[in-house]
C-alpha cells in the first residue's frame, strides 16, 4: 500500500531535489534549476527575483540569487558547481510566475554542472523528507 505524504505541496516526479527546496532537471548537457511548490508557498506573493548573468560561476551551496516576498529576502543556493548558461528573463520581469508555475514557466536558470547530481533526492524521497519539515 502506498503511503501518502502528509504535506500539501506538489512534488513533480522525474526531477531531482535538494534540501534547499529546489529542483533540478537534466536535459542533455543542460540542467534546469527551479524552486519547489513548498518554496513558493512558504514565501507567499513573490515580488522580486534576482538571478545571475549568463557566465556566472556556480559554487555548490553558495547563494546564486534571491527572491523577496513580504519584505523578506530568501536565498537561492547553487545545487552544484557549474556555470550559468541562461537565466529566465520571465521570472525577473514577473516574479509571481514563481508562485503560479514553479515547475514550469518559473524555472530559474539553465546551467552546465561540473559536479555530479548523485546526492540529490528523488521525488519520492523529497516528498517524504518534506513531510518531516517544520514550517516557520
Amino acid at each position: 500500500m502506498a503511503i501518502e505524504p502528509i504535506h500539501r505541496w506538489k512534488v513533480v516526479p522525474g526531477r531531482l531535489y535538494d534540501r534547499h527546496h529546489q529542483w533540478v532537471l537534466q536535459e542533455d548537457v543542460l540542467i534546469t534549476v527551479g524552486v519547489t511548490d513548498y518554496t513558493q508557498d512558504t514565501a507567499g506573493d513573490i515580488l522580486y527575483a534576482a538571478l545571475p548573468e549568463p557566465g556566472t560561476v556556480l559554487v555548490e551551496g553558495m547563494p546564486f540569487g534571491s527572491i523577496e516576498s513580504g519584505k523578506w529576502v530568501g536565498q537561492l543556493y547553487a545545487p552544484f558547481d557549474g556555470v550559468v548558461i541562461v537565466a529566465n528573463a520571465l521570472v525577473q520581469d514577473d516574479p509571481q510566475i514563481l508562485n503560479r508555475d514553479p515547475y514550469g514557466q518559473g524555472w530559474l536558470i539553465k546551467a552546465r554542472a561540473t559536479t555530479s547530481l548523485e546526492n540529490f533526492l528523488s521525488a519520492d524521497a523529497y516528498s517524504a523528507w518534506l513531510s518531516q519539515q517544520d514550517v516557520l
Partner: protein
Amino acid sequence: MDTWRMLDLGPLPAWKQMALDKVVIEARARDSVPNTLRFMEFYPPTALIGYHQSVDLEINRSQAERLGVEINRRITGGGAIYMDAQQLGWEICMKVGASQRIRPESLYPQLAQVVVEALGSWGIKAHFRPVNDVEVDGRKISGTGGVDYYGTVIYQGTLLLDFDVKTMLEVLRLPVEKLSDKSVTSFAQRLVTMRELLGQSPPMDEVKERVQAALMHVLGVRLVPSSLTDFEADAWQQSAETYRMPQWIDRRKPPQPDANYPLENLTYKASGGLLRLTVQTNMAMTHIKTIFITGDFFVYPERAVLDLEAALKDAPLEIHALQSIVQQHYRTGYQYLGVKEEDWIAALSPLCLNRREGSL
C-alpha cells in the same frame, strides 16, 4: 534557558552597519556566535533602500547629497527608509534550521512582539499589522523586514523615537507632487513617534533597555551584553569597504536612468462621498507599491483608512485579490458611511490588468 548576546556598537555610518549585518548573520549561520539582539544607530543620517530596490527609483540623490544624507542598501527586504539619530534600529539574528524556508507572515508577528511589548512598558498599545508594520492606532511606529541565510535569519526594524518627516520627504522619492504643508501633514498622520505619544522623546538608552527586557520576556531567553568576536571584527574590517562601493549600493539599476514608478490619481464617487486614491505601482504595473487614500467620506474609526492602505500595500492588481483584501478589511467591523466594498474595487479597477475577471 538559552543565552543570547546583545551587541550595541553605537552610532555608525550605514556602510559599516550593512557590512556588520552580513558578518553577524554569517557568524551565526556557522554557529560561531549565539543568537543576537543588535541595536543600530546611524550617523550620518541615511536613506536605506531594500535589497532588491534601485537607488534612483527610491531616493533623490541630489537632495540627499545636499542634506548630507548617506545612501545605502540593506541586506534585508522591504522599502526605502530614512534614518537619523532619532530612530533606533533593532535586529534579531537567530538560527532557525538549515533547511527551513521562511514564511514571513508567520515569523513576523512572533518577533515583532518584542517591539510591541517594549512599547507596552510605556503604556503604549502597539500591535503588529501585516505585512510588516507595528502600529499604534493605525499609525506606523516600526517598520520591519528580513533575510535568511543558511538557516539563519535577520529580522530587523526601526523604532521611531522622533521623526523628521520633512527631510524624509525631501530625500525619498515618495508619491507626492510637491512638498506642501499638506503633504507633510498627510505623511505625518501615517506615522507616530514615541515623542508624540509620550510628550517627549525617551532617552535612547532607556529604549534599548526596554527592548532588551521585552526580548528576554517574549522569547524566554537570557541576554548578555557582548562584543564582536575577533573573527567577526576581522571579517568586518575586511568587508566593510565593499558596502560603500557603487557595486553594492547601485547593484540594481532602474530600467532607464530617469524611470519613475507609475503613479495614478484615481477618484471615485461613492454615495457617501468622494474617494481619492493616489496609487504608485511597481514598474510592471502588476502590484500596488504604495497607496494613499483621502476623500470626504466618513469612516469610524479613522484608522480604518490607514489599515486599508497597509492591507493594499504590495497587493496584486487583480480584481479577485483586491476583492478579497477589501472584504477582509470590512469584516473587521469598520463603519464606512455610504462607501461599500464594491466602491473600492470600482475605484481601483482601472489599474487592474485582468478586468474581465470582475463584472464591474
